[in-house]
């Protein structure tokens, strides 16, 4: 184990896989000498050279398209979109091409690519550089969607994503890039895609949370613990495929569920998770309505106070926990 940042963990995952498998290549805007807009790939250009770490023009449509094309012909490309917001430009390549090739070709193709998407607000980058668009991709069969929330998860899941034979949208949290954590150094440290992690065990309320909101949920859990409320925090880690069993079992245990995500509430994945709970066995165990805590239904504003108010805060999560406990 070694302490590293979320960004370093992602770099380690990519580098390890590139050393292991010559078919793994990495491309994106300013990922080479510049080291990526967030410094994630610093040093990789020097190690792997311009053939395998490829700076692209500012051409998102073709970045994703090229990744799909490379993948279907035997490479394992990792493509970085500088901001998840720019996935809009790459949508056709991803949604109509990469996601569907295998199925519409009758299972005769595989598309082992990873699209890394730095997401989330909190950086002051305003409406076009702050979005959390994971729900869009969850809505496209053929894509897997992974949302790591700690350095170790990022490393283990990215390695798994690179080895996966399907297109994986890997949602990174810009604000977590500098967060530190202990990360296994072993080459074979792989986390299973589609497996949730119980980040905190508890008996009273289940908080299902992923991405940047995890840390806030854990803090909220500590606050309400002083009030005698024992919170279980479940991090699905992968949104598609979703580890329904872990979530449902947790809710069956606690009887109360809150789903927290940063993305806007309407049409967001928190709603999907809430629905999974509601239509499952856990329904009969619910002792309170399932709550969603999510971003306000607005674009991310520039003003820092407004920007903070958009996404769920620690206090709001704690209040929601109290609400379902009727406190």
């Amino acid at each position, binding site marked *: 184990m070694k302490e590293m940042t979320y960004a370093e963990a992602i770099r380690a995952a990519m580098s390890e896989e590139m050393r292991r498998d010559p078919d793994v290549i990495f491309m994106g805007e300013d990922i080479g000498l510049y080291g990526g807009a967030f410094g994630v790939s610093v040093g990789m250009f020097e190690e792997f050279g311009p053939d395998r770490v490829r700076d692209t023009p500012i051409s998102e449509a073709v970045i994703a398209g090229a990744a799909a094309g490379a993948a279907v012909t035997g490479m394992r490309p990792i493509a970085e979109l500088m901001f998840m917001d720019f996935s809009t430009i790459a949508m056709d390549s991803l949604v109509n091409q990469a996601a569907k090739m295998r199925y519409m070709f009758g299972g005769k193709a595989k598309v082992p690519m990873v699209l890394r998407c730095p997401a989330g607000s909190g950086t002051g980058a305003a409406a076009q550089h702050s979005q959390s668009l994971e729900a869009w991709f969850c809505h496209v069969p053929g894509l897997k969607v992974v949302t790591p929330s700690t350095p170790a998860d990022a490393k283990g899941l990215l390695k798994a994503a690179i080895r996966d034979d399907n297109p994986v949208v890997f949602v990174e949290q810009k604000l977590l890039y500098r967060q530190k954590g202990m990360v296994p150094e072993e080459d074979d440290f792989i986390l299973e895609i589609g497996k949730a992690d119980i980040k905190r065990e508890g008996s009273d309320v289940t908080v299902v949370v992923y991405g940047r909101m995890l840390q806030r949920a854990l803090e909220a859990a500590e606050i309400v613990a002083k009030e005698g409320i024992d919170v279980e925090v479940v991090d699905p880690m992968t949104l598609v495929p979703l580890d329904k069993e872990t979530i449902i079992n947790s809710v069956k245990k606690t*009887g109360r569920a809150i789903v927290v995500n940063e993305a806007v509430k309407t049409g967001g994945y928190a709603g999907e998770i809430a629905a999974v709970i509601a239509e499952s066995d856990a*329904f*009969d*165990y*619910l*002792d*309170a309505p399932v709550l969603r805590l999510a971003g306000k239904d607005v674009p991310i504003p520039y003003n820092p106070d407004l920007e903070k108010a958009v996404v769920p805060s620690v206090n709001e999560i704690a209040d929601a926990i109290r609400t379902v406990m*009727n406190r």
Partner: protein
Amino acid sequence: MATEVIMPKAGMAMEEGTVVKWLKKEGETVEKGEPLLEIITDKVNMEIEAEISGTLLKILADEGEVLPVMTVIGYIGAPGEALPEEKNAPSTASETVVQSNPEAKAPVSGADLAADEATTGFEGGLRATPASRKLAREAGIALSRVAGTGPKGRIQKSDVEAYLADEGSAESTHVSALAKRISDAEGIDLSQVKGTGHAGKVMSRDVMNILDGTLSRQAEASDTVAANDSYVEPLSSVRKVIAKRMTESFFTAPTFTLNIDVDMTEAAALRERVKPRILAATGYKVTYTDIIVLMTAQALKKFPAVNASLVEGGIEYHNRVHVGIAVGKPEGLVVPVLKNADQMKLESIVSASKELIEKANKNKLKPDDMSGSTFTVSNLGMYGISHFNPIINQPNSAILGVSAIIDKVVAVNGEPCVRPMMTLSLTIDHRVVDGAPGAAFMQYLKQLLEDPYGLL
């Protein structure tokens, strides 16, 4: 779709009504406007006419059953037509029950819970969490009986748990009021009765069937006795206590019994006179037992020797008069105690004793209700008994046996005359009371009953 027959709201203030009599049977046809059933409201009896023509498909309310207005009590439709899911709670009444009458817990069958769940639109429906619903379903509790403590009165799992804890070994069957009364009276365990009413509701006929079955089994049992000589039924715990107490009393106390005949003409007149007023005030009818308890309490005040106990170190003469009333139940005798009966007016005795008897019938008597008696009254008059020797309820020193009031020809002022006559029997513990004070007590009691106004 079958049309509902409901308990109609026949007046602004009417909240519930009693089904007196169904004028049609299930399966019979009715014409629109034809009398269908008779109900009694808080004011009057009235006939309810069918609102449509058709076949009376289902009767959901037993005769004698008291139901909130708007309750569905039956269905009229085409023969063989399917009934809608039960909606036996009025759309506005459930919450009222939850709010105002949390103690009124009636057990309910699982199927009935579907109806509870069907009323969750919150236009007066039930607000309850899935967890509470599941628990209630498993425990066979009607959610409408559980008071919700959650937001907006929502019933939480913890509320059902509290209800269950409070309820203890709750009976778990949905029953009609009449069926409940019969089963209470006959000591039938309702949880063992399979309901044939709508949604598995236990109806009086179901209880009667069980009762018939029991009787025939008893008949079979006696046949078996003939064949096998005898059979042993293990003693119930109540039976054991009674056996022990009676044996102790019988073998420790040297007793004798004094009988006296009382002319109940004036007492009967008194009863008739006060009956309407007391009914209005308490909702209960005044009984002869009430009058006898009233007079006995007054007499005991005058004859403390009869209101005494033998204790270590001597005889304890009680300053207070606490009259035990023997209540026979199928499983055995219980004696709830009317505290400070000598301080009570007739009206108070009526309501207090009825409440005790009701509690006894519902097995709701608490230890407090059954302790501290200083004297006991046992009335077997309703069985036509002419006289009997009751056994003293220790540590009392005496017990009064009340027999039937029977019209007899007696000489009044030398002329033969028919009078309602009743025998009172006082069994006395001779260790405490001698014959003379006992006899004087009886003479005084007779005087009070024959001339009630003498008290004034």
